[in-house]
């Protein structure tokens, strides 16, 4: 009885906080849930009642884009969908999304929740997920998550709390695929070899040891990082059979497309999102959609019209220049972002690196980024900004950027003003998490106009 009262109070206070935030003109993505969880820690279990299916999306990269696309797929299929589309993926953000969606009543209520890989245990302890999707496990914020194998072990432990849940796993990531060993109801998806696939590994590898034998896996090809087609030279561990796969991946000025192949079907999906990593996002969301009964024709239409969320390669115009803003947060993500946006057009760059808690305190990862696409591009100047501007500048200096082309301006606003004075038509801004909102606000203040998804210039394949 007492619990019930406390729970009602928590929901009331959380929704009051959400209302006050809205009146104050702020979008609250975590605060209401944070308050409500303080009042009643068991709140998630209560809010999860009546939601079916509940889909949890976790992994290092691609959570936000994948879960947003999946939410749109389910919406188009006629569901009312509760989701945390802004990427607030710790328990407070999950609770906020569920509080906001608590009003919708009754039939056809689904939830698509993006959950931080470090928070999965807490969330799955309370939320009876029906489907858990794991995108990939890449090196990210080592000071928070420690090592990949440890992270995989903690995810495995979290998944053990929901033995009935179906799993949708990335077959191309050996660490992710190994999460399915010994479980029932596991589905794998994968991207077949593309013209961009490499046969040589990236300079820095991780997660490429056999989960049983601890010997390095043999790869037929790599997409990026340790993702690709692998087999163990000693035991029978190999990339699992895929229930869903992307074949014939193409990338041109209209975006990217591939054949989506599933049990008994094959449709061509065309998306405005650039890059191999977005092909994964589209493939992952479409596979989850198929598992939940979304019609192939609905998938095709929704994917075609889908646009990325904030900071996931955003286009804008500023002072007569064409600009693009990209969130970077780990080596593979930053390398892939550079492969996507660094092209043949002369551009000025801003690389704004912070080391606050949400960015990761340790910036050693900058040295693991494959900077080749940037070094080979036509840059007029590279301006380093943020709290770790000097670290970035030193890294670029040793990577081969001349001192004349480098500039260090820790203050982001001054860096933006300086960049607009460069005699080029393109401006490319890479920001870590805590610089992103600030950068967007500054751009708005300087009169930038937002554009739809950015289309990369054609400069492939590497």
């Amino acid at each position, binding site marked *: 009885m007492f619990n019930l009262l406390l729970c009602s109070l928590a929901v009331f206070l959380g929704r009051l906080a959400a209302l006050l935030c809205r009146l104050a003109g702020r979008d609250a993505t975590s605060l209401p849930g944070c308050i409500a969880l303080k009042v009643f820690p068991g709140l998630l279990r209560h809010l999860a009642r009546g939601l079916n299916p509940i889909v949890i999306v976790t992994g290092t990269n691609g959570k936000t884009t994948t879960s947003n696309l999946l939410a749109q797929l389910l919406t188009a299929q006629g569901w009312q969908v509760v989701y945390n589309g802004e990427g607030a993926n710790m328990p407070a953000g999950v609770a906020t999304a569920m509080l906001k969606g608590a009003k919708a009543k009754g039939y056809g209520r689904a939830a698509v929740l993006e959950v931080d890989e470090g928070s999965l245990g807490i969330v799955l302890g309370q939320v009876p997920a029906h489907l858990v999707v794991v995108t990939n496990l890449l*090196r990210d914020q*080592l*000071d928070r998550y*420690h*090592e*990949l*194998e*440890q992270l995989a072990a903690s995810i495995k432990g979290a998944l053990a709390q929901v033995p009935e849940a179906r799993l949708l796993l990335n077959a191309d990531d050996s660490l992710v695929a190994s999460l399915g060993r010994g479980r029932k109801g596991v589905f794998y998806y994968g991207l077949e070899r593309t013209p961009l696939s490499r046969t040589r*590994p990236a*300079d*820095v*590898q*991780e997660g490429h*040891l056999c989960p049983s034998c*601890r*010997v*390095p896996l043999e790869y037929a090809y790599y997409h990026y990082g340790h993702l690709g087609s692998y087999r163990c030279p000693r035991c029978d561990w190999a990339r699992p059979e895929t229930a869903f796969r992307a074949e014939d991946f193409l990338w041109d000025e209209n975006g990217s497309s591939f054949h989506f192949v599933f049990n008994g079907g094959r449709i061509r999906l065309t998306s405005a999102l650039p890059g191999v990593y977005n092909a994964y996002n589209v493939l992952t969301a479409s596979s989850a959609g198929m598992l939940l009964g979304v019609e192939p024709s609905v998938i095709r239409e929704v994917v075609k019209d889908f646009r990325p969320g904030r900071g996931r390669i955003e286009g804008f115009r500023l002072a007569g220049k064409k600009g693009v803003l990209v969130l970077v947060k780990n080596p593979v993500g930053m390398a892939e972002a550079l492969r996507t946006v660094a092209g043949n057009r002369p551009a000025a760059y801003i690389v704004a690196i912070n080391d606050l808690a949400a960015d990761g*305190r*340790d*910036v*050693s*990862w*900058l*040295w*693991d980024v494959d900077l080749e696409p940037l070094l080979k591009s036509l840059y007029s100047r590279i301006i380093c900004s943020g*709290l770790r501007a*000097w*670290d970035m*500048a*030193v*890294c670029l*200096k*040793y*990577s081969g950027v001349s*001192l004349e082309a*480098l500039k*260090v301006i820790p203050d982001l606003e001054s860096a933006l003003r300086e960049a607009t004075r460069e005699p080029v038509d393109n401006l490319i801004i890479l920001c870590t998490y805590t610089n992103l909102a600030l950068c967007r606000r500054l751009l708005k203040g300087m009169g930038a106009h937002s554009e739809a998804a950015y289309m990369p210039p054609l400069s492939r394949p590497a």
Partner: protein
Amino acid sequence: MKLHICHLYPDLLNLYGDRGNILVLYRRARWRGIAVEITGLSLGDPLDPKLYDLFFLGGGPDQEQGVAARDLLTKGPWLREAVEEGAAVLAICGGYQLFGRYYRTAGGNILPGLGLLPVYTEAGNRRLKGNIAIRAPRLGDPRPVVGFENHGGRTFLEGDGQAEPLGHVVFGFGNNGADGTEGCISGRVIGTYLHGPLLAKNPHLADYVLALALQKRYGEVPLAPLNDELEWEANENLLRRFGRGRRKGG
């Protein structure tokens, strides 16, 4: 003049931008007209002790480090011979632990190390992580060495601290978070917990390591000064932000 660097287990021990150190050594040598050859050796590769002037070993995830550790023991006799021949060693984080006498795990198992550094390591419960600065008098430059540390192990200098640490903690944890020492230096072998691209923000340490490596073939080589403005600015920036009001042991 040519420098031969051996990067041990570049595919396994590469956790925190470790390859940055190789890049820094390479550039700083090249800017002075010294040729550099870098060889990566991994599992099962034989090691010719006469061939190399400098061995570099980084940090790795537990699994990878375990695999490398077993292989490293088979390379042990060659490495010992190489050090006796005058080769220098820079071992970081996991590599530092492997170059000590042993690592005692949380379960009490003793994993033998190479014993080329007079240190031993015990598992700790809490990870020691954060920005760190140390004073390293050996470098002959009063400016501190700065970096980031993130380790579960507690390393102790043998003989009740008789062995020579690389430096003394200004802020951060160091070897074990208790005795104010950081790293170890013994002859031409250096071990430290300051991980990742350690040499990038510490040009004095980078040149010290370069000079150690060149000694094997060429004796004392005067290293021409370079323009290190950016590097020192990065070094001072870290001190300014994290050095204020913080004491060792944090």
